[in-house]
């Protein structure tokens, strides 16, 4: 824990970036047209959003054992979340879900 203004500023920056990506990702899940683009939006929340917030918290905690734990969580999130997104999108594509395109005659759903 540190109340040094520089540390606080870095923490706020990281957490704000994370919150921004969560917001964008949530809007994406609600607004994007098909499965693939929504998966794309959802994985942004977990990787950049959660990752950035965790790094910010680690900076705020300072040089302690707890910040190492937080960074470990961030590392595991960065490994697993894209893998989950990859597995979902791959399974959908291989089982024949057609990606959305703007013009309906190219095989999209509209």
């Amino acid at each position, binding site marked *: 824990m540190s109340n040094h203004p520089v540390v606080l500023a870095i923490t706020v920056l990281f957490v704000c970036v994370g919150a921004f990506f969560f917001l964008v990702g949530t809007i994406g899940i609600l607004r994007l047209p098909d499965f693939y683009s929504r998966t794309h939006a959802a994985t942004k929340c977990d990787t950049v959003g959660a990752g950035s917030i965790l790094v910010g918290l680690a900076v705020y905690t300072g040089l302690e054992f707890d910040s190492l734990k937080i960074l470990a969580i961030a590392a*595991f999130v960065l*490994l*697993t979340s894209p*893998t989950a997104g*990859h*597995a979902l999108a*791959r*399974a959908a594509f*291989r*089982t024949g879900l057609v990606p959305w395109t703007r013009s309906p005659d190219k095989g999209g759903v509209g």
Partner: protein
Amino acid sequence: MRRALTLALLILASVPLLYAVSLLPPVGSEDNPTYTYVVPHYLEEGPEETGCENIVTAVILNYRGFDTGGEVTVIFTALMAVFGVLLIPRPAEKVRQPESAVPVSPVTLFIVRTLAPFIVVFSVYQIINGHSTPGGGFQGGTIIGALLIAASLVMGSERTQRLLPEGVRRWLQPAAVLMFAVVGVTGMLLFGEYLSYPIEGEYLFLRVPFLTLVEIGIGVGGAAIVASIFWAMEGSDG
């Protein structure tokens, strides 16, 4: 007519419920009975009375140990119900073919294999340390169960089930219930009442082992049940 009747019944049923809610002590008020008596007692006396530094475990395994014992029995009964429904032999043409259409992604396989040791270490840590840190049998067991499911997805259920052969699995599923019974009866023989833990005296050293045994039972049982339900739903168990 029917809709009006439903609406009238709903309103009729909600009036006593809302009245009861209005009689509850205000949320967050300082002089709620929970805040004036129960919580201070747990927080102040808990670690000494139960031997758990983690107050959640103190409440779950000690103050309301009977309740948790009932809870694991409910979970085990739920597994039996799931088996009862899912393991009814289905006509051959209705049996879903295993979804081998999509070959396993090398990326997913690599990540699951790389992370598996970390996941095992983390869940064992949670189970063993449940009495002093956040976590415990339920959480640790679910993590192992989830790992078994992930392994089934990338390696195939048959290879994963070889880690936990049918004969072993059948005995691990009721592990939580059995462990509660063993610790409960041991407590009864030593201290007079079912599921009682030593508070003082020569058997005090048994307190943490008792708690750890129950945690291990909950963890092993939980993992076996989570994985078994997945395999039963997939149709590869039975």
